[in-house]
């Protein structure tokens, strides 16, 4: 049961939140021009890494704001949580790659 730092409310218990998968996947524009494969890529395919993962979280039972988190999928360590409009914090140990 994680403790998650909501960028709006501070540290809160995981039970207040829900996770909604990989972050930074914008909805395509001009979808009519996309092939079925391209559309399928957007809807169904995710990177699912073993390691650091940027993902979307919602503070359901709190401020009801969406935000992003950088979490390690093995250790469950939250490196950072950040607002939707914030720049991406770097991934640890990768020379500041964001």
């Amino acid at each position: 049961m994680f403790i998650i730092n909501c960028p709006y409310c501070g540290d809160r218990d995981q039970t207040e939140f829900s996770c909604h998968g990989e972050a930074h996947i914008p909805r395509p524009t001009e979808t009519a021009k996309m092939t079925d494969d391209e559309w399928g890529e957007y809807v169904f395919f995710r990177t699912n890494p073993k390691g650091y993962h940027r993902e979307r979280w919602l503070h359901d039972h709190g401020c009801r704001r969406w935000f992003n988190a950088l979490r390690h999928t093995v250790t469950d360590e939250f490196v950072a949580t950040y607002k939707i409009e914030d720049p991406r914090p770097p991934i640890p140990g990768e020379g500041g790659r964001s």
Partner: protein
Amino acid sequence: MSQPQRLSAGGSIDRSKLLSFMFDGRQYTGYQGDTLASALLANGVRLMGRSFKYHRPRGAIAAGSEEPNALVQLETGAYTEPNTRATCIELYDGLVAKSQNRWPNLEFDVGAVNSLVARFLPAGFYYKTFMWPASMWMTYEKFIRKAAGLGVSPVDDDPDVYHGTYAHCDVLVIGGGPAGIAAATAAANGGARIILLDEGNDFGGGLLGTSDNAASTSYIDGALQVLEQNDNVRLLSRTTATGYYDYNYITALEKVTDHLGPANGGDAPRQRFWKIRAKQVVIAAGSIERPLIFADNDRPGVMLANAVGTYINRYGVLPGNDVVVFTNNDSAYQVALDAAAAGATVTTVDTRRNVSSELKSKLEQNNIRLFEGHAISSVQGSKGVESVRIMQLSEDGESVQGQAWEIVCTCVATSGGWTPSCHMFSQSGGKLKYDESIAGFIPDPSKAKVSSPNFSAGACNGSFTTHACIEQGIAAGAKAAAAVGKTASASSVNAFAVSEIAQGAIAPLWLVPTVHPVGEGKAKHFHDFQNDVTAADIHLAAREGFVSVEHLKRYTTTGMATDQGKTSNLNALAIMANIQGVSIPEVGTTTFRPPYTPLTFGAVGGQESRELFIQERKTPMHEHHVANGAVFEDVGDWKRPWYFPQAGEDMHAAVQRETLAVRESVGMLDASTLGKIDIQGKDAVKLLEMVYTNNWQKLAIGSCRYGLMLNEHGMIFDDGVTTRLGENHFHMTTTTGGAARVMSWLEEWLQTEWPEWEVYCTSVTEQWAVMAINGPNARDLLQELTDIDVSKESFPFMTMREGSVAGVPARVYRISFTGELSYEINVPARYGRHLIEALTEAGKKYDLVPYGTEAMHVLRAEKGFIIVGQDTDGTVTPHDMDMDWIVSKTKEEYLGNRAQVRVDTKRDKRPQLIGLLTEDPTVVLPEGAHIVAEVLDKPPMPTIGHVTSSYMSPNAGRSIALAVLQDGINRKGETVSLAMMDGSVHQALVTDTVFVDKEGVRVRG
């Protein structure tokens, strides 16, 4: 004489408080401070239960929570609890317990025949035997469950009260033995907020069962006194840490009043479930002794050495007058000395040949005979040990040889060494490492999970002397305090000297040989007592190719009983390692999982039970419905009137009457539960354009429009009517069950995809009370109560008007879910009761009828209006619902647009919504009934669709149904067959979905 095995003095029991209790219908006595197990042993009762699979006679082997055998059915009636460990039940006056898994009684058990046919019940027996033919499993299972059951679940409602509570602390210390007390003391001295918990009723851990009590007791008492006076310290006895979860979230079960007996706890709850968030954790969980695995080592009277010591020293009970101590390490020597001091005749059998001269001389001084390099080769006695035979061990420990000595005894105290209790560390996400010097796994702090910082100290860390435990406890407590920013002065804990015999140099002997190879002869080597798993089963599993320890565990069920293999796991791993010729760490360990010991469901639920288990939402008109005899149904969390039966009416009669009344005159429905979202902002139209399939740009102010929402798979997920209240202001309605989902959906897109849009969504579901009046007289009824011009011309269909209704401000929407002339009157929630009363009064002359959700369902089905979630199931596109009319052909983008032209969503012959009219108009098809392509003698038959809604329609004068059918839209006019569960078949005509007023005249009336 009562309590023949009770010593005349000693122990921490209160001999002035004699308690009486019943076991298997017989009356016994014990003392305050006993456990059920210690009291039974005091009375000479060794046989306490029958085993799980073979129904072998069993007694207690332990004195603590690791006990696998002595499981009893505690108390009776509603208070009964199965599988409780006699070693953990504190005795109280009037206690009633029964042994388990025996019939007709414990002494004579029919099921014990399993033991005679044991060669036919090997590992994996159930998998191999009863899985074929698969259809018979259902038959076998009942009998297997009965024969292999443990206790019996209570039938009655649990009368006890349970509490759940949250707690936060700087340092949580798990375990109140020497290490835990030292850690708590050190951390508390630094000013940290501490919780110290222990599963026992007293703090002291292993020291409570040892004989050298003076120094240890004074240390414990002194330290506890200081801790008790510290406001920053919470001491929880009778509290077991059951689970260790991420970010130092620990659950613990406190048995608050169990020790007082049923219904004796006063106002206190029976148990309390703690949910603790700790910044740092010190794990001081101690260790568990392992049995040596010798032939027929499960006979009652064979016990762990430390248990024998604990019964003598803590409870003043000598488990047997003739004791054989059988060990491969030093710690059991203290037990030999304690038993001798208590008056027993003691023989010690050590598998080692190099026992220290110091230990030897101690035995000699106490007239204890020692056999070095020997082992127990067999046990005599079926319902309890009567004697053992011992033989010399070969040099390699693989066989026994020479002459067998027969030693008469009623108790065997066995020690195979000590296994650190790594459960909590492992559950925290840490990995274990193997320590050859103690022959066991210990925590590897370099492989701990960073998000759950903790320190292990004492026996659970592989340090078995009291001195080392205290030292490590102090160090761990100080480190934990420092980690939370406090400074601990380590020197403030005064260690003390105890002369003790610890594990010493252990010589592992994982399987004690006998005259037959393992698996041959009648004798069994049990390592997992509770699940009746023997060394032979592990050999068999290995022969059958189960190499992975996780497979081994599941195939043999070793370690999978309610004790989770506390006494058995390491032995099982070691036997497997020997077979494979690899080291124990190469075999690896299985995963430790919560709960550490079994816990009550009631405690997990806590206060959130019965009427508090799920919240109920009620509309402002609820009490009026109750007064009018409504029968309610649950929709989402809401209580909605289902139907309003009049005297003598059943549900069918009431629904038929209500349904007819609406179309004949006028009916009213409480529609307050529909989701309502207020949408404002200059980009509100943009939002609606994206989330609905149709066009919203040109909707006039004061007009309403129906909309369908799709997910990105192109599937329908909600629908409702949205009204334009102003240029940039809309009122959206959703389904009752979908309200929260739709709100979240809008917020998700607005916040994550279009944060720059200026749109604000507010849930106003509970701000409005809504009554829908439906029927040809709805206008006349409304006219009586409002100042709004309700004429056809000035208040047309699909518009909204504001005004006053029954003297209160209202928004009236002329929209319809029945196909009738209909108004949905919205008033501020606080006027809801007033509105329904005013309608009831004014409606008298129109024979106004209140109707419920069931009549509403019939009415909408008569018009072919879908209910999302009933006629759709998440795999349905607008086209599948024959609703192309609502999908914009001109909009470039909206959610779900692209998915509708995917190969699969645009293919022909998808299941599509149609109407069905049965050949026999009196037949109401069951919802879910399958439309089959051809009728066969018996299932399976190829299915081409199913019924989604089905009712008797009084307005159509016959039964009607909606269904999805492959290529249904092109099959109208065909007759299809529906196969029923009972084998009968109905024919039905495929029609369109509108059964009443096909031209749609009434709604515009």
